[in-house]
């Protein structure tokens, strides 16, 4: 082993409980090749620290206030090897679907920890598929998004689904319109659509999903298409197929 001469592996510990962070810190004491770059007590701090420190490895708790571990992954673009550490085993499946290196259950034992670390070292630097799509795919089918997370630089915004007015596709991005503001997110409109409750959100056009409750009326526009007028006056194009979907939803509600 020539560990000492190699460049150190930068790691981040993300957990909202001080004692849980302490355990990981202790377990890492025997590994001089790992350098703890920062410890974060919540998801917001984590998103910021990842942008700042560019760690190669991250120990990540799942259940944290406001932003969960999965939310954090959805918001970062950096390629980080992730080891989840949580008391809840019901997220294990989802963790592997987002290509986590390993999934440690608390309390964490030394042997299990060493195994995870070994695996992580092998995986560091691997090219991973974009995690946004993975997170969307890993969501359980009956559960719809209750909120969306967006990042602008190091600023993270949470948009509750009820406050989402419409979604607009823009090249590789989608713009999420909520309360007069637009938030850009790197994700396909199809995967956003899959996550939203179809009883509340309708794909009215190739490039638009609308919150059904915001639509005040539909006006004819041109030969084949229509316009949806939202409560705040926004006008969105409605395609023929989109109009059919809108009508089905209307009939279901009637």
């Amino acid at each position: 082993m020539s560990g000492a001469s190699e460049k150190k592996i930068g790691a981040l510990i993300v957990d909202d409980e001080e004692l849980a962070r302490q355990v990981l810190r202790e377990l890492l004491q025997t590994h001089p090749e790992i350098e703890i770059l920062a410890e974060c007590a919540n998801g917001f701090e984590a998103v910021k620290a990842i942008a700042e420190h560019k760690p190669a490895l991250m120990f990540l708790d799942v259940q944290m206030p406001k932003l969960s571990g999965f939310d954090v992954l959805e918001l970062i673009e950096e390629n980080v090897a992730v080891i989840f550490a949580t008391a809840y085993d019901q997220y294990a499946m989802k963790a592997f679907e987002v290509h986590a290196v390993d999934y440690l259950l608390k309390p964490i034992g030394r042997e299990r920890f060493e195994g995870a670390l070994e695996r992580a070292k092998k995986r560091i630097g691997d090219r991973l598929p974009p995690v946004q799509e993975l997170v969307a795919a890993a969501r359980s089918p009956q559960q719809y998004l209750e909120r969306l997370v967006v990042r602008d630089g190091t600023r993270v915004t949470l948009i509750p689904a009820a406050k989402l007015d419409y979604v607009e596709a823009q090249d590789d991005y989608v713009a999420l319109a909520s309360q007069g503001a637009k938030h850009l997110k790197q994700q396909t409109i199809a995967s956003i659509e899959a996550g939203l409750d179809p009883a509340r959100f309708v794909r009215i056009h190739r490039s638009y999903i609308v919150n059904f409750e915001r639509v005040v009326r539909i006006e004819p526009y041109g030969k084949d298409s229509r316009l949806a007028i939202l409560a705040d006056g926004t006008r969105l194009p409605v395609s023929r197929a989109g109009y059919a979907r809108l009508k089905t939803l209307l009939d279901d509600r009637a």
Partner: protein
Amino acid sequence: MHPLLTRRSYLAAYLAVWIPLAGLLVLLIKVSGGIATLEAATIVVPMAILFAGVCLSAWYTCRATPLRSSGISRVFVTHLLAAFVLSFAWVQIGRLYARALSSSTSFQGLDIRYDAHAAMLVVSGVLLYLVNVGFFYVLIALEASRAAEARVLETNVLARDAELKALKAQVNPHFLFNSLNSISALTRSDPPKAREMCILLAEFLRMTLGLGEKSSIPLSEELSLLHRFLAIEKVRFGARLQMTEEVAEDCKTMLIPPLLLQPLIENAVTHGIANLPDGGLVRLAVHCHNGRLSILVENTFDAEATPSHRHGMGLANVRQRLEARYQKLASMRVAPNATQFQVSLSLPAEPQEVQP
């Protein structure tokens, strides 16, 4: 199965009722004249026994025409038709019997005398049949009400079972895992604290197991369970978890179902405080007034970060147990606003019985 055929004693009682009816028929024919008492009895008594059997069939017709779901005209038409057809057939059989009797010397000419009363016998038959119809409808109604009663009893038993099961499932495994994780962290950094935490956890578990078997406990016992729970969570959350408690001294001896407040406090911590990066406050207030016990559990929370259904399970459990135990006498109100989650319970204050 016909209810009267399920037991011999039922059938015997039914036939016994027919004895005075047969007597009445004999009397009726005798009074209308032109026939001797012996003659009337000889012909009417076997006919009455036969008709008693025939009328048993009315039960099936009644079953097939339930009063509640069938229209009134259908009920009338069905039973009147059955009554006339059966009564007419019965009188025809009686006529054959009278003819057979009249061949003997002592009953000569009976068939002619019988025919004089045939119309009256048909009418009596119809009436007797209809009386049976009424009787069977009453019987069916009684059976239905007994079945309903049995169902209610069964539901009560099920509710009790569910309550017990709910009680046993109280200790959240995640609470255990998280506590064990805290202990594992403390063993190195603060061994005395680790030991203290082990003891708290052991006491909490022991109390939970013991309380689950009781039907009610004094509030003070529930409070000491809560204190342990909160002390354990306090180690985990540190300064993020703040708590206050105002419990009126005279309430502490009041009886409550065991583990009624524990799920509320647990909810307050796991869905309230745990979702706040800077933590918050859990407040417990208990007061007694006018024979009522009022309990308030309040916690800081973030309405947007906490999906409402997460609160559901524990709260639904508490609500069910209150209903099972106090029916309409207890109430529970859940009032979330943007920053506070409030659950208030009101239940009858049951003072602990003083041992003589």
